[in-house]
């Protein structure tokens, strides 16, 4: 008989199941763990990573919209009845030099973020296996990243100051409008990342399990690298698509 779905024998090992694994009569590990290396942590980590990547898709669409608005606005003209022609009013905004420094800062912070992530995840796994946190005084990769992140946010602030001193504000011309909108939007999103890092930093103080800290750092690292890539994209847009 024609079936609309494939024959799914219960003995199939189906990777498409969320967290499946070999079928047997013991309850699936997700629902409370049963003594094998804290699969709670594995499941939670996978879940939060997945959530973060999905969230990134939404953020990408936000910046895609701004990009398409940018490109359209750059190219369109308004009918000028005085001259009887379509006239565009796009005047490129010079990107302040400080943003180069900023970009390097962010790239470097991605490196420190990645170091922080690896260390923290390692420590969490060690703690699970041996029951202790191996590094009593870990290298403060997290702290450094946080500081670099805050430093990065200061960058555009300085850039805006420089533009303001030249008389270029958000409404001066369309390219400056986009400059502000893009840098502010990115800055706000990055601030979210900084707040997450601060939260990770205080998890120890708040006596949350190392697992939690590892997941927060792991997922924030994903977000951080994404913010880094996003910044490079925005920077390139402002520099090249003038």
């Amino acid at each position: 008989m024609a079936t609309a779905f494939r024959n799914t024998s219960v003995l199939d090992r189906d990777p498409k199941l969320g967290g499946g694994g070999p079928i047997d009569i013991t309850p699936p590990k997700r629902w409370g763990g049963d003594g094998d290396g804290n699969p709670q942590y594995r499941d939670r980590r996978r879940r939060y990573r997945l959530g973060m990547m999905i969230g990134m898709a939404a953020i990408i669409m936000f910046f895609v919209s701004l990009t398409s608005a940018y490109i359209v606005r750059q190219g369109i003209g308004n009918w000028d009845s005085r001259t009887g022609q379509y006239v565009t009013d796009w005047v490129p905004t010079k990107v302040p030099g400080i943003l180069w420094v900023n970009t390097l800062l962010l790239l470097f912070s991605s490196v420190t973020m990645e170091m922080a992530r690896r260390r923290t995840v390692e420590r969490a796994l060690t703690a699970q296996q041996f029951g202790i946190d191996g590094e009593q005084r870990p290298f403060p990769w997290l702290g450094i990243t946080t500081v670099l992140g805050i430093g990065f946010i200061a960058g555009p602030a300085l850039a805006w100051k420089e533009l303001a001193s030249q008389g270029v504000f958000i409404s001066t011309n369309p390219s400056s409008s986009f400059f502000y909108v893009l840098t502010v939007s990115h800055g706000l999103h990055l601030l979210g990342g900084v707040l997450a890092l601060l939260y990770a930093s205080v998890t120890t103080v708040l006596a949350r399990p190392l697992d939690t800290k590892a997941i927060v750092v792991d997922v924030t690292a994903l977000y951080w690298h994404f913010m880094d890539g996003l910044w490079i994209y925005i920077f390139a847009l402002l520099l090249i698509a003038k």
Partner: protein
Amino acid sequence: MGLVLLVVIWLITLISTYYFAIDKWAMLPLASAHGVAMDSWFHVTYIVVGVVFLAAQIGLGWVVWKSRDRGDGRPVSYSHGNTKMEVVWTALTAVIFIGLNLAGERIWAESRFQGAAPSAIKVEVTGLQFAWYFRYPGNDGRFARTKPELEDASVGNAVGIDDEDPAAKDDFVTGTLVLPVDRETELTLRSQDVIHSLFIPAMRFKQDAVPGLMIKMHFKPTQVGEYEIACAELCGLGHYKMHGMLKVVSQPDYERWLAQKEADKLASE
């Protein structure tokens, strides 16, 4: 209950179809050239959609009644579907829908893909909150410059014509659009404030007037008469009363009217 549903669905279907068929609230009588193809395409679409509508709703009523639980414990015809049928009706639907669309595209192309003939009468239409103004270029065939700062209906210059432009001598503006029958007209639409839309139902004509753009559209009136113009894009509190009038007159009448208008313009200089 199944029977009740069948009756209700069939009644609704038949009554609606009846009113569609008798065209009780008909479109305004057609008065333009390109409208002929449009109206006939309406009919084609009516028939295709109408057949599908009748088939689907009557089918639904029938199925619902026929497949009711009669309480006799008979088994259902257990099935997860039929791939062959799926393929057939998918293909059929695709062919009908997309085919209908492709067949009718020619009509869109004819009115929109090409501009007006060079000999078309040119009128500039300006929409603003809440009136339409029509500017004729006069004998020189040129529209004079306008400036936003000169727009002032209270001094009779709603469109903002710059009198320093020599072409302004023979431009004149009216509140009524007057056109000769059987001649192509090119309208250039513009707006002074928000988006408006020039809608002349009898001409099967509609086009948004967008601030910042100069949009050219053309059509050819084919019947003498007076036709109402409505605004068809929400433009503020006066949207419902932003209407104008199109008067289609014979060629001699049109020339007489033009001459009169030119004379008036010169007299007022």
